[in-house]
């Protein structure tokens, strides 16, 4: 009897597969480059992740949730320069920062009124000037200018990756158990249905390229985010794997119990730092061609709320990691935290539009031209200049 894999490989060989298969050729302009976008959903507190400890107004403005190194004990942050520090939970990133593989963009965000998660996430993903201003995602539209295979990590495709370009969704840590026995029988049933057969083949490929089930289980026991990052890294490291991936990480909406050195936010950041190192290791030599950008829908209020947390704010921090990154820098047109400089008298003011960051990366890493960036990918955005010089020439 022909096994499922043999059957699928045979079909792949005659060119029946491909629509949802992962292995369609990337356009030559991309070379071996990879791009990973990490959506930090919920509104990560950039003022806690990257505290501006050198700002003369910082301690007073932030109040009880400020990081005060003079309080004794282990410092809640490590200084990166005279102004900014890195949350102690992100300490695993310090070697990356020193090696120039991590750049931070601060006081970055999106021009939004209202501070709703929904509107802000919509804006972050659709790339238009207003929420719901486009019904597809900027990353999908970017694929129109830089064709390559792209995948969402998980079952659903986030708005960021939805649109006219064919994309897929994979979960390389295999959360959907389906028995070989059933899958093998289904390959026969799908023989006359190319679409379903493509999907089954894609699933088969993902299983083959992802982690073996036992390994995935072991990894997941140590944290699902880390497991997902590692599995994504090994998926993208394969020559025939996808070149663009989107990972979503939730849990940043720290209205209560945010904590300072320890607490909910510290746990989130620590898991993110671990996950990133796992991803870096899993990517192996391809890391030198990989850019990872991490952004959130908004920052949080400068002052804490009454429940040991922070409410929705405006600007925050974004992270850019990877081999090609010209890192070891915090890029910020720092607005300051004096009362008169706060947005609406309460938030870190926005001085860098996140679209400038995304445009810069798409331009320098994926060789997408200005016209496409200003018109299709980020509609009516010519006024927002790409943030260039983020990557090594």
């Amino acid at each position: 009897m022909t096994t499922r894999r043999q059957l699928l490989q045979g079909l792949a060989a005659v060119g029946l597969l491909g629509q949802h298969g992962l292995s369609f050729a990337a356009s030559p302009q991309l070379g071996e480059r990879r791009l990973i976008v990490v959506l930090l959903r919920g509104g990560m507190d950039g003022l806690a992740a990257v505290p501006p400890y050198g700002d003369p107004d910082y301690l007073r403005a932030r109040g009880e949730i400020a990081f005060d190194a003079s309080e004794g004990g282990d410092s809640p942050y490590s200084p990166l320069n005279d102004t900014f520090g890195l949350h102690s939970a992100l300490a695993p990133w310090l070697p990356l920062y020193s090696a120039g593989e991590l750049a931070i963009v601060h006081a970055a965000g999106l021009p939004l009124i209202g501070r709703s998660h929904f509107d802000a996430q919509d804006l972050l993903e659709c790339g238009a000037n207003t929420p719901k201003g486009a019904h597809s995602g900027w990353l999908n539209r970017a694929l129109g200018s830089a064709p390559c295979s792209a995948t969402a990590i998980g079952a659903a495709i986030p708005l960021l990756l939805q649109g006219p370009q064919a994309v897929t969704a994979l979960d390389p840590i295999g959360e959907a158990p389906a028995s070989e026995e059933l899958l093998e029988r289904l390959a026969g049933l799908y023989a006359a249905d190319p679409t379903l057969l493509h999907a089954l083949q894609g699933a088969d490929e993902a299983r083959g390229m992802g982690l073996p089930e036992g390994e995935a289980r072991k990894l997941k026991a140590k944290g699902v985010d880390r497991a997902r990052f590692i599995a994504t890294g090994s998926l993208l490291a394969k020559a025939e794997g996808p070149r663009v991936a989107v990972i979503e990480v939730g849990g940043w909406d720290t209205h209560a119990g945010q904590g300072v050195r320890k607490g909910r936010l510290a746990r989130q950041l620590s898991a993110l730092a671990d996950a990133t190192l796992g991803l870096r290791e899993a990517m192996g030599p391809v890391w030198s061609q990989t850019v990872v950008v991490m952004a959130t829908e908004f920052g949080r209020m400068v002052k804490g709320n009454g429940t040991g947390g922070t409410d929705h704010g405006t600007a925050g921090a974004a992270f850019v990691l990877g081999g090609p990154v010209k890192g070891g820098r915090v890029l910020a047109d720092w607005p300051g935290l004096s009362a008169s400089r706060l947005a609406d008298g309460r938030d870190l003011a926005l001085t860098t539009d996140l679209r400038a960051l995304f445009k810069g990366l798409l331009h320098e890493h994926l060789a997408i031209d200005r016209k496409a960036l200003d018109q299709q990918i980020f509609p009516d955005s010519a006024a927002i200049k790409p943030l260039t010089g983020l990557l090594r020439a």
Partner: protein
Amino acid sequence: MKAAERREAEKVPDDGSKAESRKAARQLARAVFESELALRVEAAVATDQPFVERLVRFWSNHFTVSKQQSNIAHLIGAFEREAIRPHVAGRFEDLLLAVVRHPAMLMYLDNHQSVGPASKVGIECEVGMNENLAREILELHTLGVNGGYTQADIIALAQMLTGWGVLLRPAPTAGEARPDDTAYRFAGARHQPGPQRLLGRDFDAKDARQAEDALRFVARQPATARFVCGKLARHFVADTPSAKLVDALSAVFVESGGDLRRVVAALLAHPESWASPPSKLRTPEEWLIAVGRALGPAFNNTQSGRFEGPGAAWVYAQDWIGQPAFNAPSPAGWPDTQEAWSSPEQLLRRISMAEQIGRRATRYITDVNAWLAGVLGAAAPAVLTEAVAGAPNAAVAIALVFSSPTFLRR
């Protein structure tokens, strides 16, 4: 003083109560959402008029309101019951008006905050207009993106819609929820006065009547007929329906003044609707409902029992297979072509769920062949009946049926 001590010392005693009441409100909204969903699922699984349920879902998706905007989660079930369901066999313009007047839509697309610049409120306060609802009505609900309207038309409609808002009362005390706590209301003080020109026609009625006239006018445009009928044909017949079919439906739409009963009758009478084999891939939600109908009353017992409250298991199931209930990612609704629903991970999750359901369903299905004959009848192709006959046990056989092309397509 250490930060923790300072926090303790400065704690305002009443801080907790605000968070408590926010939490209570969230829990209430979630309970309402889940019980609405349970009712909706029960209706779809048990109905003897499944086509009506399919129409309801089609129009709900056409006029998407989404739980992604969390402040309307508790209104979405009501939206479908009150604005969509009564009109699926009525006139399109009545459907459109019911939808645009519903608080769920007014809040989802921000019209409740929209204020005419020359209105009383607009002059007194520094607040402005929001074009969102007007734009989506023209782009997504009626004329379609290439329907021949301009930015000036969007602004005109947005101005006419100023004042269409929601009456929000203070939260009721426990056990005292009133049915009209969130209700449509027209606020004349926010309405932009004066005539407006839309699609070359002047609208000079006063107050809410002005937008009502405009919406009825837009609903009857030939471009609207084409756009809406194209979507109906794509949903019920094929991802790329023939121009002939869309033309035929549009003609009925125009000639009948948007009588949806007649449009749907024409759709059902058209030979392309009965083309074989069926080419539409069921969305995850459609597939789950089909599984429920095939299992009958046994269905509830095949769902994991670890969820409390009606609807919770369904919420989980839909999340897991990639189409969370009432949670479309944008006002454009869920996509309606197979590319969007045939990613490897999604297929794998359906197969995985079919396998789990198959294992639990063997307690209720004693004779798989008889069950299959009852569910698919003559529609079961030989390759499927053979696969079922060759299955090592009933659980695999049932999973094969639910994962088969015959069942995944409609």
